C-alpha cells in the first residue's frame, strides 16, 4: 500500500473536504493505484539532476512597478456570499 485511509482523511481535512466513509475508501484505492503507477519513475537514476520547479523552460517574467487600475469595490465584491459596506462579510474567526 502506498497510501492509507488515514492519510486520505488527513489530506481531506487539510483541504476542507468532507468525505463519507465510502468515499474515503474509494479514494484510498484510486490514489494508491496512481501512486503505484507514478512510483515507476523511482526506477530511474536521478543522481545529479536538479529537481524540476517548473515545467516550462523559462525564467524571469517581470512587471514594472507601475500602478494599474483596480477593478472597483462592487466588482470585487460581486461574487461575495455576504458583504457589509465595502467589506467581505464572513463567519466569525475564532483566535
Amino acid at each position, binding site marked *: 500500500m502506498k497510501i492509507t485511509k488515514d492519510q486520505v482523511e*488527513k489530506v481531506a481535512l*487539510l483541504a*476542507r473536504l468532507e468525505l463519507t466513509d465510502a468515499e474515503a475508501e474509494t479514494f484510498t484505492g484510486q490514489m494508491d493505484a496512481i501512486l503505484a503507477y507514478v512510483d515507476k519513475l523511482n526506477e530511474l537514476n536521478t543522481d545529479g539532476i536538479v529537481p524540476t*520547479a*517548473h*515545467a*516550462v523552460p*523559462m*525564467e*524571469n*517574467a*517581470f*512587471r*514594472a*512597478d*507601475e*500602478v*494599474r487600475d*483596480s*477593478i*472597483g*469595490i462592487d466588482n*470585487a*465584491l460581486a461574487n461575495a456570499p*455576504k458583504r*457589509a*459596506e*465595502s*467589506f*467581505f*462579510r*464572513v*463567519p*466569525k*474567526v*475564532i*483566535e
Partner: protein
Amino acid sequence: MEYRAVIGLEVHVQLNTNTKIFCGCSTRFGAEPNSQTCPVCLGMPGALPVLNRQVVEHAIKAGLATNCEIAPRSIFARKNYFYPDLPKGYQISQYELPICSTGHLDIEVDGTVKKIGITRIHMEEDAGKLVHSDVPGVGDDSCVDLNRACTPLLEIVSEPDLRSADEAVAYLKKLHQIVVYLGISDGNMEEGSFRCDANVSVMKVGADKFGTRTETKNVNSFKFVKQAIDYEIERQIEVIEDGGTIVQETRLFDPNTGVTRSMRGKEEAHDYRYFPDPDLVPLVISDDWVEDVRLGLPELPEAKRRRYMEELGLPAYDAEVLTATRELAAYFEACLEFHSQPKLVANWVMGEVTRALNEENRPIAEAPVTPQLLAELLQLIDKGTISGKIAKTVFDEMWRTGKPPAKVVEEKGLVQVSDTGEIERIINEVLAREAGQVAEYRSGKDKLFGFFVGQVMRASKGKANPAVVNELLLKKLQG
C-alpha cells in the same frame, strides 16, 4: 538552577513599492476597503501572478546590507492553509530556494559586539486584513479587507543566536535602521510595516541541547518585543521548575497585560504542504545584476558612523546620534557642505535643531532652518558678528519665521558689540553702580570677576563680545 534563553526572530518587512508583488494594484495605506484589488490579488480562478521587479531589487538590497549570499536561482512556493484573509487558500512565498541566505549583523549590547546570523531572507505576499468590530450591523461576523492582500513582504529570519531580550531589541533596531536607510520600507511599526515574531526557548546552563521553543506572534514595537520575550523566558523557566514541560506552540502577546497566551487550535493546520508555484517561473539573478544593485546602495549607518569618527573626528556618541536616521545624517552632511566645522555643526544639529524638532514633533524634512541657513548662522558666529549665545536667540527667530540669520540680526539689532569704546562705557557704568563689589574684588575676592562679566553682558543685552569684555574688565579692575 541557572537558565539561558535562546531566541531567534522572524521579521516581516513591508516593502514600499507602488504596486503589489504580483499585480498592478496600488499599495497605498488607508484606502477604502477592497478598493485596491483585482482578479490576481482576489485569487480569482485563472488569474496569473507576475513578479514585480522592484521587489526583487529591494530583496537584493536587503541581502547585500545584511551580508547575505544572493541566490543565483530561486523559486516561489505555495504555502497552503485556510483563513478568511487569504483568498487563494495559499500564500505565495519562498521555501526551498529563498533569494538570500547565510548573512549576519553585528549588534552591540553593553559595549560588547556580537555577530547575529541571518538564516535567510525571502519574498512573499501579505494576507488581507480581518476587521472584527467597527462595522455596524454585522453582529459576530468578521469583515475582510483585501487591499493588503498581495502586498510585498520580506521575511528576514535570524539564527537562534540571541540570548536576551536586550540582544533581540538591539538586533531589531539595527535591522529596522538598515531597511529604512536602504529606502526599501517606511519601517512604520504602528501601521505594521515592520513586524516581529519571536521564537523563544530556555535551556539549563551547560546543557548541550536547546529546549522546546514557542513562537510569539506579531509583537509590534521595540518595547513590546522586550516585554514579550522577558515574559516568555520567565514563564518557561517557571513551567520547568514546577516539573512541567514546554509545549511547542504559537502564542500571542497582549500589550495591555504584558503577557503571552496560547493560540492553540491553529496548530492542527500547521501542515503547509509547500510546493513550487507553477504560476511563477524561476528567478535567475546574474552577478551583474547584483553588482548593479551593490553600486546603488546608500552609505549604511555603520559605515557612516565609522566615517564620522575617523574622517570628521567626531566622538562616538555624536556619530551614533547623527546617523540614527538617514534624514538627520543628510541634514548634518548638507550643513557641512556650507560650513566645514564638523564638531560645531554636530553640536548645533544635536542641540538646537533636534530640540526645536522635538518640541514641535516635526520631521527634519520640515525644519524651517535649512542646512544652508544654519551654516549661515554659524558663519556669523565665526566672523564675530554675533556671539554663540545670541546665536541661539537668532536661531529661535529663524525657526519661527524662516528668515535668514543676517536679516534677523539686522532687524533685531543683535550685532555683537566688539567696539572697545562702547564696551568700556558699559563697564564704567557697571563698576560705578557696583562700587561695593569692586572694593571687595580689589581686596582679594577674585571670584567676583564672573559677577562683573555677567552684569556687563546683561547691560549690553548679551551683545557685547565676551572676549573683549573679559579683557577690558580685567584691565579696569586691576587699574
